[in-house]
């Protein structure tokens, strides 16, 4: 099949869990996780630890390897190179972790990560991931619907938007010492986008807890939007009635819109968005066509009915 992506990597190529788990996570994982860790360490293939259930929202696609997903990342807080996050993100302390939920909610406050996870059930969501830079992957996320968390916080009637903020700790995030962006990293969604069942808060990949470079311990995933909308390492969620400021839009309003829906017909000013390079295809991989709303058109097109998507890029 033309353009079909093939990988010669398999589960035996995945980094043994013992090699990448840091000590803190192992200690916190408890006896059961420790057992699984030890097993995974000797047997090679990673063992299921999060126990995510399959989901009807998953796409029947061949996923990228764990190596690819965890070593090719944009996370400018840890450096602008694609391999910088994998090299530096271990510096980020992810325990304890809590998310401050505030603004137009009935139950504002600090929500501890364990408390958040105790009230949701984790699902595996195999999603396409399309970067604004015109490369893509398929990633088996583990997470829960953002709606579950927002319902718990109690969204008030007048709220129209959800604003998100990434943690900012210059001593742990070397990239924030230069002002590539106006830190902290900020993102936002319209409330109906945030409430959509495809929109998830992810805590894992391949049934393993997220690594720092992928946005540990908890991040947003909005599969029909360019990757930068899926904000990482979230510490704050604010419900508001005005459209929130978003980092890339602030840095380049002409290049990065608030919506940033994947759209092959609306080019980035500096490159075409009509096709993409699927990561993992090697030197001679063919480009593949980019799909409207990244292949999620049937599920999300309604959200934008009647909207000029060229003007609202």
């Amino acid at each position, binding site marked *: 099949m033309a353009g079909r992506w093939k990988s010669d990597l398999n589960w035996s190529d995945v980094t043994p869990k013992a090699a990448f788990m840091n000590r803190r996570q192992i200690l916190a994982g408890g006896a059961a996780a420790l057992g699984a860790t030890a097993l995974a360490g000797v047997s090679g293939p990673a063992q299921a630890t999060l126990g995510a259930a399959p989901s009807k929202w998953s796409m029947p696609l061949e996923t990228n390897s764990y190596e690819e997903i965890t070593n090719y990342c944009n996370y400018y807080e840890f450096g602008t190179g694609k391999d910088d996050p994998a090299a530096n993100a271990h510096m980020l302390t992810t325990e304890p972790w809590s998310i401050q939920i505030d603004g137009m909610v009935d139950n504002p406050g600090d929500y501890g990560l364990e408390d958040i996870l105790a009230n949701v059930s984790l699902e595996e969501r195999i999603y396409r991931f399309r970067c604004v830079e015109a490369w893509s992957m398929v990633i088996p996320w583990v997470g829960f619907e953002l709606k579950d968390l927002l319902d718990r916080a109690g969204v008030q009637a007048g709220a129209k938007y959800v604003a998100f903020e990434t943690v900012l700790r210059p001593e742990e995030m070397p990239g924030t010492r230069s002002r590539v962006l106006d830190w902290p990293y900020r993102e936002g969604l319209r409330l109906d986008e945030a409430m959509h069942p495809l929109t998830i808060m992810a805590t894992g990949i391949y049934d393993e807890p997220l690594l720092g470079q992928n946005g540990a311990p908890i991040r947003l995933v909005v599969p029909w939007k360019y990757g930068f909308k899926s904000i990482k390492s979230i510490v704050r969620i604010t419900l508001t009635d005005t459209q929130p400021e978003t980092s890339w839009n602030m840095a380049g309003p002409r290049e990065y819109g608030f919506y940033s829906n994947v759209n092959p017909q609306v080019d980035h000013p*500096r490159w075409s968005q009509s096709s993409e390079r699927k990561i993992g295809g090697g*030197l001679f991989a063919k480009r593949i066509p980019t799909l409207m709303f990244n292949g999620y058109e049937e599920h999300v097109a309604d959200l934008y009915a009647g909207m000029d998507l060229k003007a609202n890029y």
Partner: protein
Amino acid sequence: MIDSLNTVLRKLPPWLLYIAGTLPVVWLFYAGATGGLGVDPVKAIEHRLGLWALWLLIATLAVTPLMKFAGLRLLQFRRALGVLAFFYVLVHVLVWLVLDVQILSQVWADILKRPYITIGMAAFVMMLPLAITSNNWSVRKLGAPRWRSLHKLTYPVAILGGVHFVMLVKGWQVEPFWYLGVIVILIALRKLPKRARRQAAG
């Protein structure tokens, strides 16, 4: 110090530079094909070739100031440096065309529509006459003054190359500004009098 360095340099044949300068390109494709450049080898090769081309342009531009202000004689290597810079840009353009964009109609659209590509392309086109005339026969045929003024195209080529780099990165990154800054300084140094050299000698 400088004098003994010059003596050593005089014994080095410039063709060594052509061989040494070609090896990294061979290595780059080998590493890209065997997974040594990470999971996105096309981008890695493309970026590295562009970066190395800028290094070579900077090296070419540094020859005159180094002679003027430090007395270091590298003139015999300048042609090789310039031709290698062109070679790197050529392979950079080919990788972009064949391995990255792939679709010819989109290549044209990109050249016309996207300023950083237009600028990069302009620099590449301006390098063509320089590469073609980088031989003794052309110097004789054109006459030294005309040949020299033609090869002043190197200045806009290097500046456009630096601007191309500044424009292609996302956000405000420092690295490309370093390259552009060094290029501008090396060109500006040509306008300065030889004072430093005379002081060093005196």
